[in-house]
């Protein structure tokens, strides 16, 4: 009868200790060397999109007629997503851009929409999207969405997700129609830019 090789092996504990020691060594190695940094922070989708919306205020120029006065606040409207609205409120506290305060505009009433400089249309409003864009796409408003086909329907910036990361697609035709200028820095981080021309 074959002697079980397991009986000849020393107690299993030392094997586990070696494995743990090995893992600890690898972990210290990876952390101690201050390596590859690569600390991609982790956050929720709503948080990242809210921070992007805030960043758009810095990297987009609006025509002068978009604002009532030189010191009017920059207004962002959010349609259909309470979570992003909440996150956005936290991000814009005490922030200014070009001397203007940033504020959230309530979008319950359609007549308030033209007051905004940025309007975010969530995927929950997908069914109404063509109707919404039809009303605002000639106004000086940066339209931002998160649904497939957003650019095709006249939106300017669309959030997509690649590999668990939020990416951007930008439509320059729609930007031209709305008379907003998107800075080259923002264009350079977008995955897709449509309607490029010189």
């Amino acid at each position, binding site marked *: 009868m074959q002697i079980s090789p397991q009986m000849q092996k020393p107690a299993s504990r030392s094997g586990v200790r070696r494995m743990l020691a090995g893992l600890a060594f*690898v972990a210290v190695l990876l*952390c101690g060397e201050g390596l590859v940094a*690569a600390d991609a922070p982790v956050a929720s989708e709503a948080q*990242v999109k809210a921070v992007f919306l805030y960043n758009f205020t810095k990297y987009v120029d609006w025509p002068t007629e978009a604002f009532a006065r030189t010191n009017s606040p920059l207004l962002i409207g959010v349609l259909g997503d309470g979570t992003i609205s909440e996150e956005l409120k936290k991000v814009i506290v005490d922030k200014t851009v070009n001397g203007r305060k940033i504020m959230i505009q309530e979008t319950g009433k359609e007549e308030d929409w033209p007051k905004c400089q940025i309007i975010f249309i969530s995927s929950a409003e997908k069914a109404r999207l063509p109707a919404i864009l039809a009303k605002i796409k000639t106004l000086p408003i940066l339209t931002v969405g998160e649904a497939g086909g957003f650019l095709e329907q006249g939106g300017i910036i669309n959030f997509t997700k*690649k590999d668990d990361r939020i990416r951007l697609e930008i439509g320059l035709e729609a930007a031209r129609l709305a008379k907003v200028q998107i800075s080259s820095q923002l264009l350079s981080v977008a995955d897709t830019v449509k309607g490029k021309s010189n």
Partner: protein
Amino acid sequence: MFKRPQLGEWILRGVVAVALMLATVAEAADTNQVPKPSADLENLTLEQLVNVQVTSVSKKETDLFASPAAIAVITQDDIQRNGFTSIPDALRMVPGIDVAQVNGSEWAVSSRGFNNQFADKLLVLVDGRSVYTPGFSGVVWELQDMVMEDLDRIEVIRGPGAALWGDNAVNGVINIITKSAKDTQGGLVSTSFGSDEQSITSLRYGGQLSTNLFYRLYLKYESEDGFANSAGNRMPDGWDALQGGARFDWEPNPNDRFTLQGDYLAAYIGGTAQVPLLAAPYMTNISMVNAKSDGNVVGRWTHDFSPSSQLTLQMYYDHAVKPDVQIPSTLDVYDFDLQHRFALGERQDIIWGAGLRDSENDSPPSFNLTFYPQRSYTQIYSVFAQDDATVVPERFHVILGTKLDHNTYTGFEIQPSGRLLWTPSEKQTVWMAVSRAVSTPSQVYEASRYNQSAFPAGGVPGLVSLFGNPNFKSEQLLAYEAGYRFEPARSWSFDLTAYYNVYHGLQAYQMGAPYFEPTPVPHLVFPETAENLVSGETYGAEISAQWKPLDYWRVAASYSWLHMRLGPINPTSASAGDSPQNQFQIRSYLDLCHNVDFSSAVSYVESLPNQNVASYVRLDLGLNWRVNQSWDIGVFGQNLLQNSHVEFGSYRTPQLTEIPRSVYAKITYKF
């Protein structure tokens, strides 16, 4: 076999060497592409912002919290951190689910008791396609393989889900959902190798054919050696499998979504079986290598009539070829399902649907198994409806639903269910449910003869034969469940479920009077016939808690308790000793610096007296290092505390296979 422990060490040394090499390469590379760690999201540059990893469970977490059922979700993040290489492996995480590995290729998985390789009270779906085998009941887990990185999540519902999900969702539903093609763009190559010559290589490529048409193609090769039995002999239960598939997702307009997907898997699976003979030595061991395969095509269309009205149509075809000494089968399934969800007024959310499934099973007769007829055609027609009524907005819901179906063997079956959902605050959920569910008989219990064992019976051979019974009815369950969820703060939450299940007509074999059979050789038959003999109750509770003491450290613990009281005593089928009475686990997920995460899990599974399996404690560890946007390295160890242990017996042979300690490394490259 001194190979095993040494291989583990070599793997570690290899990984350290590779890690050092990659580290030097990465430091020399352009560090501009890779953002430095930063506490505040708002202060990140645009380049860094596009690299922030988002946790996509947030919306589903709110849905889960207010769900009137015992539901748990295994996310892609859980799969990556723990290094799960198969679905049953991942299911171990969920309280109330019994997962036992039988041998190198076979598993026994069930929910709330009755564990068996033929667990017939659990419905398992992959992207809407049922992978339950109607011929013998149960899921052939070795044929359910997928690229684990492409899984979006696994939803596990314990308790009857019959009203919505369908037949055999008696004690639970496992819904395996893969990512859409849009979420798996680009290429991925992943290879893992470990002890027991376990090796898995997956290749996946996702691309875009036009603005709204995305696709994904994949190829996966997996191979594993057999494990050893209690005497230390390596069993021939190893396997080799090659699988490939594609998925297309098309969204021509915001109101329509089409999906077409298909897979083909071909595997060589080894095993031993002990089969009867009508002459000495009466039982003999056969080693077999079966070429099993499964091909399927699934098509789905979802149409939004309005934000509050959605229609889904799904069709699939599945062809599974499973040659086998004991239970051969070639199975063709054609399935059509329709589901419409709409809001009625301000307060009611209605789902209704209809479905048809046609199954054609061909089991060629052999000395071991004969099906009557050899080729069977069975159909199930079903309709269902559910109304979720808001009695007090944001506070109290009443959900009533029922499924009515007609199947070939037992005719009409009705499975009603009623639930109450009370959310006294945003931090608490209380729910209660009463449901009836049935388990439709499989052909083996209706019309078959299975020659199980032979022995000398005083001069002539004696043969124990298990017979199906055309009068065999569905097994019935009346389940009473209740649950409570509490999330006092973002950093900790608690989920408690309790249930009391009353069963009628559970299957057991009834011994009959022996009789003489002249062919092929004169012998005495000791018949046992499938009858709805067993009744009784099971009750239990599942508790799970999550605690996040620090931003980078999460702890999850769960405990399940199950008590079974069934009679009459000693039924040969429904046995209380097949599932553990107590199971406990605690898992820790730690984010170390620089994209390194470390996870550990300790689990205790109590003994299975009916299977001669002792209780055991498992220790599993995992270390993941995200080197950069393209490279990932992981090292994992399972069953680290013991050389090996037994988890479950096999219906094929009395020999118990030991599940060994295993160590493996995984390298992933994305492009």
